[in-house]
């Protein structure tokens, strides 16, 4: 009997050992991760590591979307430092720092998936949430890394935090990261307290200045104080255009170089380069605007209130090497050009798009040299009673804009021109026939061309969402905002809502959860002379209001609610208060 038990035990042990042996023999190769992707893009090569610090235990994957949901296939184990690396140059992961090996670390397990957002490259701008005033050189106003802090089902509140000191007429903000944020302002010489351009580094929690560099004092030298802009190129330096100068600062506020720019046919004191743009290889492009000679009115008011604002020379267009801070090319444009230059890439060529009084032109930019494209000549699209367009925005194969940057007696047109064929030109009047509030109508009774009744005024450019094929237009006199789309037959309205704004709109959030953010002037107040604003968050696909801020002081006119990290945004009060907006469910 004992012998029987012995043999039985031996048999069992043999079976068990065979079982373990068999298990080892039949282990197979397999994937560590389950990956699903939304927001379609061209295929991207990524590496996913169970240990992103090593990196160790890592595999190649191909994804065809920007929004990734990742979990592991290994049961019952959490990987605290899993990592993702994107092999395609310039792509990065939103909100995560990069290791020296190029990985972004996250925690994941088989039952706790992680969602990651891939941010496409944005040359030549620094890879942060906002480095350039309108995100990219095409001025889309889509900030893909920014998120909405509230709930997409509405019922949100918005907390605010006021800065302890003023940043007069703050214009735009640029970031190296969440803790390195900079504000440029002071360019509205017609606003009390604005005495010329400044740049400051802002503490993200208190909003107090870490350093403050007043670049010029126009109240002393009398030069025209008109808004320029600030941007951070991939070299990490801060570039600021103000008046007829371009300054290069490091992140500590130290001026590395200042380039004095040529002023064309006008005196330096009446010249301003209203912002700048840059080609994908980092060449800075700047264009001049002028105050009428002999006019001493400050700020944007000079463009309206000087005796004859149109009595100015043709603008000049410059290209500048930011490394050497030397001018590469300098050409005189056919006419005065008000709107800021927009740069788009089409068929492997890079173009700068400019809006003349009634039509548009473009130059190819080749190694910094401007070459007029005589094959791209849209027919005049500014109708009688309309005024100039604001800047173009590049949207896929199209450039889009809206007329009536100055008060106009004809409803504004949204214009879309094909980059490949300028004869393909679509126009659409989204606000035609919309009633104007009586007080506004009265305030603008003689503001139109030649003293006519103005019915339309859009001092801001459109915003455009290339991924969703949507254009956002606004008109501050009827107090409306609308979304349009380009179809084979032309422009079509998607939605329209009541909202009175004189500012640019901001698009934040991922492609499938895009949110449109803009100011809204309270009902009784007159656009342009308003003393208050709300900030409104809308579902960009439907126009549904998601959140509304408390009543705020008026924003610097013609600027934009600035996106920031963690679902928050910044509001630049005209009087100088910087306000952090924190929407939450």
């Amino acid at each position, binding site marked *: 009997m004992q012998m029987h038990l012995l043999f039985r035990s031996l048999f069992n042990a043999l079976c068990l050992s065979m079982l373990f042996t068999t298990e080892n023999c039949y282990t197979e*190769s397999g994937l560590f991760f389950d990956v699903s992707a939304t927001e379609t893009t061209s295929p991207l090569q990524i590496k996913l590591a169970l240990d992103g610090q090593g990196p160790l235990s890592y595999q190649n994957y191909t994804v065809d979307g920007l929004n990734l949901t990742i979990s592991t296939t*290994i049961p019952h*184990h959490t990987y605290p430092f899993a990592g993702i690396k994107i092999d395609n140059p310039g792509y990065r992961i939103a909100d995560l720092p990069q290791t020296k090996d190029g990985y972004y670390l996250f925690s994941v397990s088989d039952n706790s998936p992680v969602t990651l957002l891939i941010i496409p490259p944005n040359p030549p701008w620094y890879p942060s949430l906002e480095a350039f005033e309108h995100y990219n050189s095409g001025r889309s106003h889509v900030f893909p890394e920014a998120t909405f802090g509230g709930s997409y089902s509405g019922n949100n509140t918005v907390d605010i935090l006021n800065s302890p000191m003023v940043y007069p007429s703050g214009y735009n903000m640029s970031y190296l990261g969440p803790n390195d944020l900079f504000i440029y302002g002071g360019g509205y010489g017609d606003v009390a307290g604005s005495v010329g351009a400044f740049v400051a580094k802002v503490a993200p929690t208190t909003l107090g200045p870490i350093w403050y560099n007043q670049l010029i004092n126009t109240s002393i030298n009398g030069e025209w104080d008109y808004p320029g802009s600030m941007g951070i190129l991939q070299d990490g330096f801060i570039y600021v255009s103000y008046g007829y100068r371009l300054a290069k600062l490091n992140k500590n506020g130290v001026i590395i170089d200042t380039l004095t720019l040529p002023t064309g046919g006008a005196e330096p004191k009446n010249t301003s380069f209203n912002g700048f743009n840059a080609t994908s290889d980092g060449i800075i492009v700047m264009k001049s605007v002028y105050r009428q000679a002999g006019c001493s009115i400050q700020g944007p008011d000079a463009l309206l209130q000087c005796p004859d604002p149109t009595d100015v020379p043709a603008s000049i267009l410059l290209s500048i090497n930011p490394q050497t801070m030397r001018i590469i090319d300098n050409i005189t444009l056919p006419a005065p050009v008000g709107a800021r230059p927009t740069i788009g890439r089409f068929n492997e060529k890079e173009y700068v798009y400019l809006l003349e009084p009634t039509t548009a032109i473009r130059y190819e930019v080749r190694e910094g040299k401007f070459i007029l494209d005589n094959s791209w000549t849209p027919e005049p699209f500014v109708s009688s009673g309309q005024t100039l367009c604001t800047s173009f925005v590049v949207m896929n194969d199209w450039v889009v804009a809206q007329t009536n940057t100055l008060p106009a007696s004809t409803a504004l047109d949204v214009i879309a021109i094909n980059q490949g064929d300028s004869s393909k030109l679509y126009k659409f009047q989204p606000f035609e026939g919309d009633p104007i509030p009586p007080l506004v109508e009265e305030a603008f009774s003689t503001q139109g061309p030649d003293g006519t009744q103005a019915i339309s005024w859009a001092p801001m450019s459109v915003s455009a969402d290339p991924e969703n094929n949507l254009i956002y237009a606004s008109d501050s006199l009827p107090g409306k905002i609308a979304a349009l789309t380009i179809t084979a037959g032309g422009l079509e309205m998607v939605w329209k809502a009541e909202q009175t704004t004189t500012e640019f709109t901001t698009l934040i959030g991922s492609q499938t959860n895009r949110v449109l953010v803009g100011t809204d002037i309270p009902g009784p107040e007159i656009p342009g002379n308003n003393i208050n604003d709300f900030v409104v968050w809308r579902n960009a696909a439907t126009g549904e209001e998601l959140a509304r801020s408390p009543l705020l002081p008026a924003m610097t006119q013609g600027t934009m609610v600035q996106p920031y990290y963690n679902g928050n945004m910044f509001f630049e009060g005209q009087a100088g208060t910087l306000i952090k907006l924190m929407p939450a469910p």
Partner: protein
Amino acid sequence: MMRLGPSFYQKILIIICSFIVNLNSAAILADNWDEKRYEEQNDFDCTLQPACFNFLAEIANGEPIFQLGWFTATQGKSQHVDIEGLIGDDFEVNHSSDQNLLVGIGYYFNWLATSVVRMQYGINAFYLGSTEVKGHVIQEDLFTNLSYRYSCTNYPIYFSAKALIPCGMCDDYDIVIDLGIGPNIVNTHSFKEKSLDGGITIPDHIFSGKNTVVFSATAGLGWRINHIWENHSLEIGYRFFYLGQGELKKVNNQVKNTLRTGNGYANALVISISI
């Protein structure tokens, strides 16, 4: 064919005893060399081997040997490698046996001979050519996504004793028994990993080569032909090597423990020429 009669087994017994006793004698000699005193202590008859009375002279008159051989080595050990934050990798060995050539060089001198055995002592260094260990990496104890391989090269240096037993009536042949102990420099190198899933999994390359000094021993049995050409002799024999355990070097801070070779062994056929 050689006939192995009772006298042969007696000789083997004497040889083993000689090894033990001679090692003891060598220790005494090292402490306090005194020929006379040693002679008194030594039970063996040294009169047939005058050289044992002059140790230094024997060393000076020793014979260099050169060796060439072929060996088959067994190395490699399946083991688990812990990785920070991960379950870790199982390094399984699939191919632990490999062959290569060996070369050796040595220097032996005669000392303490008896009527049945002539003893030689010396130093003998070998170079055992590179042998390869291959296996699979089971990542997270679940997925066999990688294979790996690495090579070992051994450089053992032995303090050796060699017993030469005359073969019966013929002076031209000896049976040779070798024993030796000493350090072995185990050089691991050429660690490589390879994807088994068409390049989806990327090799980690978490180890690199390393030199490790370990204890080693050798034993051999051979057949020696004396005076094959003038004073030169030729020896053909079998050698067993215990090569000790080497290891690889971690090259990633996330890896907690290193990969070891396991205890290595080699069996060799060796041809030696003494000059």
